[in-house]
């Protein structure tokens, strides 16, 4: 899109969890590119690996997690190879993360102002830091930036004295206190009521715009992603299956899974009867015999090829910004019924 190199360039990231009941292949060859100031929606069912990806980027994965391949280039540095010290330095200062359940994500026995001050103190020499003012004043300003009323008083409050929406704002203030270049937002609005959801999303979008901050917005809610994101990346069972600018995705979803997601997401005029859930369940990622395309067992377009050869993420028509990982993308010829399943030649695409 832009001539600049992307702020975040994830290439072929693979990650597994070693558990008592087997090794879970949580992420397999994931590519993700985020440009400066861009808001990218990372969408998929629960268990698709979107949160896992977020944690892996910040280096706060579970103890049982192990990266088995790939790179995650952030401003030239490979996050996956960096040592803990470097990462800890980056966290909060260059890249931040906010989580769902804001009230439990804040220290219950520490006033919110002090929690923000802790972050400010940690990254004291952050660029743009206003060192002329005291930490407390800067914490108050951080609260003001996220539109919390009466910040001078609120700065001494405890999380249990605040509503869920306000806690989420505090968490955003915490994450953005040192003006990071990248924000990973993991389901920040889940659990909040619809009005608060909208307010929080607007806040994030506004701040991102003002500060030229890139955002990875992780959500299972496609509609929410559509409202605010520039681009959407769809994940399924640890694979990226489609990535496109928002409008293009909704005009013509190419991956069968994306189409299914859309038809299971209610819009303003959707009748209940029209909602169609995605068939089947996510495959058990501990299996050794997973099909190469992990959606194959839930897909009506699947052929033998889908089970044995993994479709690469590639542009399917003239638009290089719309990529899909599928042997039989939508908007192309229907799947041949022959059992052998000869690959559909590109010349037969409708365009």
């Amino acid at each position, binding site marked *: 899109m832009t001539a600049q190199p992307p702020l975040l360039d994830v290439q072929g990231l693979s990650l597994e*969890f070693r*558990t008592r*009941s087997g090794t*879970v*292949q*949580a992420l397999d060859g994931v590519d993700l590119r985020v440009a400066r100031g861009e808001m990218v929606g990372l969408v998929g069912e*629960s*268990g*698709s*690996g979107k*949160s*896992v990806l977020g*944690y892996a980027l910040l280096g*706060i*994965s*579970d*103890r*049982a*997690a192990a990266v088995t391949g790939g790179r995650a280039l952030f401003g030239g540095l490979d996050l996956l190879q960096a040592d803990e010290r470097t990462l800890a330095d980056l966290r909060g200062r260059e890249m931040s993360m906010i989580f769902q*359940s804001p009230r*439990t994500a804040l220290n*219950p026995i520490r006033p919110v102002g002090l929690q923000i001050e802790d972050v400010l103190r940690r990254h004291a020499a952050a660029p743009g830091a206003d060192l002329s003012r005291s930490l407390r004043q800067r914490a108050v300003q951080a609260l003001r930036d996220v539109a919390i009323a009466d910040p001078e008083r609120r700065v001494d409050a405890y999380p249990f004295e605040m509503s869920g929406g306000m806690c989420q704002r505090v968490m955003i203030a915490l994450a953005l206190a040192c003006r990071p270049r990248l924000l990973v937002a993991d389901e920040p609005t889940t659990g909040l009521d619809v009005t608060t959801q909208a307010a929080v999303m607007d806040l994030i979008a506004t701040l991102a715009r003002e500060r030229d901050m890139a955002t990875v917005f992780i959500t299972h809610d496609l509609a929410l992603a559509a409202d605010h994101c520039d681009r959407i990346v769809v994940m399924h*069972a*640890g694979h990226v299956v489609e990535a496109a600018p928002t409008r293009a995705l909704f005009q013509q979803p190419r991956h069968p899974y994306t189409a299914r997601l859309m038809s299971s997401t209610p819009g303003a005029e959707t009748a209940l009867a029209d909602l169609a859930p995605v068939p089947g*369940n*996510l*495959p*058990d*990622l*501990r299996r050794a015999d997973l099909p190469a395309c992990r959606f194959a067992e839930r897909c009506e377009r699947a052929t033998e090829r889908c089970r044995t050869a993994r479709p690469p993420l590639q542009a399917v028509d003239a638009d290089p910004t719309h990529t899909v990982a599928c042997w039989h993308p939508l908007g192309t010829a229907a799947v041949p019924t022959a059992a052998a399943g000869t690959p559909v030649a590109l010349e037969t695409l409708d365009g």
Partner: protein
Amino acid sequence: MSASLTPSPPAAAPAAPTAQPGWAHHARHVLTENPVTGVAAVLLALFVLLALVGPWIVPHDPLASNASVALQPPSAQHWFGTDALGRDIFSRVIVATRLDLGIAFASVAFSFLIGMPLGLAAGYFGGWWDRIVTRLADTIMAFPLFVLAMGIVAALGNTVGNIVLATVIINLPFYIRVARAEANVRRNAGWIEAARLSGNSNLRILAVHLFPNALPPAMVQVSLNMGWAILNAAGLSFIGLGVRPPEPEWGILVAEGAQFIVSGEWWVSFFPGAMLMLAVFTFNLLGDALRDLFDPRRRT
């Protein structure tokens, strides 16, 4: 503690949940995962065996004194040495197993049999029952328990029976609380309501439905209490309450040897003390294993 316990970063969910492993599978898992638990089970069997047949297998008469061999260090004839009266310490220690384990077992059994129904009733009926029983339990726990036991035995008289009684009383609150908590939680559960509606009497509900559910945490308590009861009885005997010499009991044996420690005859106190420790240790390990078995979330 109100810090929430949420799982760490989500792993991909398996597609179809596998059938829950059975109780026996879990038991085997706990036993093999921690080999110490297996050892503890063996030790328990050993102690029970000693308690049952001890008096018949000891090499010397535990009460026979022989001044000529007084205060001899451990040797081939007297594995644990002899005490101030020339009695064989090994025999005395072995024979004492019966008394100590017997006291502990009796105390815990009665505590259980009295405390559980009280607690279940308190948790189930609530109201006055609850208030009285809770008040009773709280009052007992308002004392340092060993001190209360001291007071009870001192007041009622210096006998083994009173040691058991004192131990029963100070252990009651544990069982009351466990049973009450379980009954309280399930009192309004759907299936209890159903049982009530289908005509089951309260007694039946308590006995048949609530009691079995309260058993697992109670069993953990029983095992831990056994160790505690042994310590208690030994402690009381050590300070001169309860079992009277020459009856062999681990606490008394240690007391008999206490004066000789500072002059170097360590074996008189050491072996009974070590045996005591081993017994309590065994019960504690078992209690831990039982707790792991029934509620892995509460592993400490």
